């Protein structure tokens, strides 16, 4: 009897769903539910008082979002994050692509060694890296200022001056991250058929023309992937300033995620913090759509 019942259930639910069920329920419980809960919380003033006694939370509609737009710190954080994404994003992709092309060249020896060296920062713990870079940036004894002194540049207080702190963070994160994208680019480069280059050489194309007309267009899917992943990752800038500058000086390195973390887990303003998270989500979503659009248009122009 039980068997018959199971069979009848089976006929209703396709085996597809049965197989998917464990994964789907895990996603539902650990991803979908928290997101919905966070979304609802973003319309309340859930804070430390509400954590103790839920009746002390108020439903306040869109007021968290409205307060965000009036919050100068939020705008500072937003500006810093955009600064970081817009400067560090393209730079880091360019460095990755450049090093990938170098490493893919037939002339380079010890390829594996170089690949390993460039990839090493990616797998190193960020906390350790940040602490080492803090020494590099140290204004009095740091090696960076020591080297700059040779070309006659006066010591710069890298992490202490509001206008230098973000460039310092950008330099460090590019160094830390470019290896990852480089590996992806190398894989993409190796997928480009060699005969295209041979044909181009016969036609008399120079290096730059080869790069412009073969490498770049054929790398387009890889570049799209890399740029989206990089953008999403960079919008979530957190650990670098958290360890190196704590957002300072004068909040010049305060990022959106750091502000969200501070509000949420330091001051327990969960409602406000959730609202910041959703604004960030919308920004990343728009950014991704935008990149798809650009990429499509670019593909047309290449062919």
């Amino acid at each position, binding site marked *: 009897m*039980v068997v018959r019942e199971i069979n009848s259930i089976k006929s209703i639910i396709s085996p597809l769903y049965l197989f998917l069920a464990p994964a789907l329920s895990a996603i539902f419980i650990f991803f979908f539910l928290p997101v919905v809960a966070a979304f609802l919380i973003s319309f309340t*003033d859930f*804070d*430390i*008082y509400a*954590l*103790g*006694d839920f009746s*002390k939370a*108020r439903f306040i509609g869109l007021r968290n979002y409205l307060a965000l737009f009036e919050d100068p710190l939020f705008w500072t954080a937003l500006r810093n994050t955009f600064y970081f994404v817009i400067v560090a994003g393209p730079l880091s992709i360019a460095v990755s692509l450049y090093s990938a092309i170098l490493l893919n060249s037939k002339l380079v020896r010890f390829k594996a060694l170089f690949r390993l060296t460039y990839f090493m920062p990616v797998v190193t713990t960020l906390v350790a890296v940040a602490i080492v870079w*803090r*020494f590099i*940036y*140290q*204004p*009095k004894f740091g090696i960076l200022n020591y080297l700059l002194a040779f070309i006659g540049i006066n010591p710069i*207080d*890298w*992490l*202490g*001056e*509001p206008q230098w702190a973000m460039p310092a963070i950008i330099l460090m994160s590019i160094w830390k991250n470019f290896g990852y994208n480089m590996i992806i680019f190398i894989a993409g480069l190796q997928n480009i058929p060699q005969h295209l280059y041979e044909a181009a050489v016969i036609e008399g194309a120079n290096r730059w023309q080869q790069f412009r007309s073969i490498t770049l267009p054929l790398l387009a899917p890889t570049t799209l992937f890399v740029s989206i992943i990089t953008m999403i990752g960079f919008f979530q800038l957190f650990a670098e300033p958290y360890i190196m*500058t*704590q957002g*300072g*000086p*004068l*909040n010049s390195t305060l990022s959106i995620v750091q502000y969200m973390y*501070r509000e949420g*887990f*330091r*001051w*327990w303003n969960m409602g406000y913090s959730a609202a910041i998270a959703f604004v960030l989500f919308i920004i990343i979503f728009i950014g991704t759509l935008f990149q798809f659009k650009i990429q499509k248009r670019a593909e047309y122009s290449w062919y």
Partner: protein
Amino acid sequence: MIWFLAKFTTSLFIISAVFSFLSCNANNKSIEIKFWAMGAEGEYVQELIPRFESENPDLKVKVQMVPWTAAQEKLITAFASDNLPDIFQLGNTWIPQFVALDAIDCLDAWVEESNSINKDNYFEGIWNTNVIAGRIYGIPWYIDTRVLFYRKDVLNKAGFSSPPQTWQDLYIVSKNIKELSDKQEKYAIYLPTNEWAPFVIFAMQAGAELLKDNNCYGDFSSENFKKAFKFLIKFHQENLAPIGISQVTNVYQAFAEEYFVMYISGPWNINEFKKWMSGDLADKWMTAPLPGPNATAHGVSLAGGSSLVITKRSNRKSEVWRFIEYLSQKTTQLEFYKILNDLPALTIAWQDSILLNDPYMHAFYEQFHNVKATPKIPEWEQIAFSKIQQYAEIAVRGVMSVDEALIALDKDVNKILEKRRWLLGK
């Protein structure tokens, strides 16, 4: 399939039954108290446990160490998931938050019945940090406050044979020190803007209330607060104190190299200072009670330290109380001082020779008689760490004038306190 499931569940049942039987057996012998302590305290308090367990064979204490940097998150998430231990260490400025959460128990009844723990055995200012709305929530375990660390040799050269007694002295000695140094890269005092304490201490000394109307509004643009704030900012403006904080990667080294000569800090730094100021430098530094606004008395400082609190939902409160009484004995407190240099909360412990013979401790002993708590509301942490520090930095770097910065500070603080006003109005 069904058969397999049945078999599987039965075996699970058997396994869990065996386990619960075993654990019951273990628990019958003694009651286990769960105790969370932070950082070094969590590590070294273990050494105090064996004596307690031998004096109380029916009790066992299980210590869990929680790192300081994540302590607050851990405690609050543990509260949210109902996983708090029976007793834990709590920085005394965090007590208001845990009272607001209704996470810790009022200890009035226990203190009243206790033969050993009594308000009069503690420094008044310290005890008061544990009292919220007239009720006691924590027993001071070890205490701290901030005093002036200074270089005797440099102050001597600057014409001061004793540490500055008044604000005026502090300013004059700083001026003199700055004039002594031919190099620009030397400073008289270190007042980093990522430490709110000096700003609040000097404001308290000037008689500022910090918050007003039952702690519902900021009172930072008041005359008294402004006076103190302006006084400290002057040190930065006149180049007597370094503006940035990134030059000083190591305060002890900077102090040893005379990068700065005075620093307002607490007992947690004593050991490191002793370590760095060794050899020739050993007798070249000292601690002193903080200078005050006038010559009649030295100035007030912050009442800091950690307390022991009991979780409201614990069902071992009387056992936990015995443990607290044990940790509050004079011998235990002195033992803890010897292990970790955590200053004893019991005033009588300070009469012991080990503390009397340490010259660096005299300033602390004197200062503890004149300490005050910061406003005891859960929002204070955010006000101090995010807002006061933010606007101190803004004013120090000249982005805003002092008046503008303090008006903006009040505005931000009033926004933070909106919830409190609503709760009190309910």
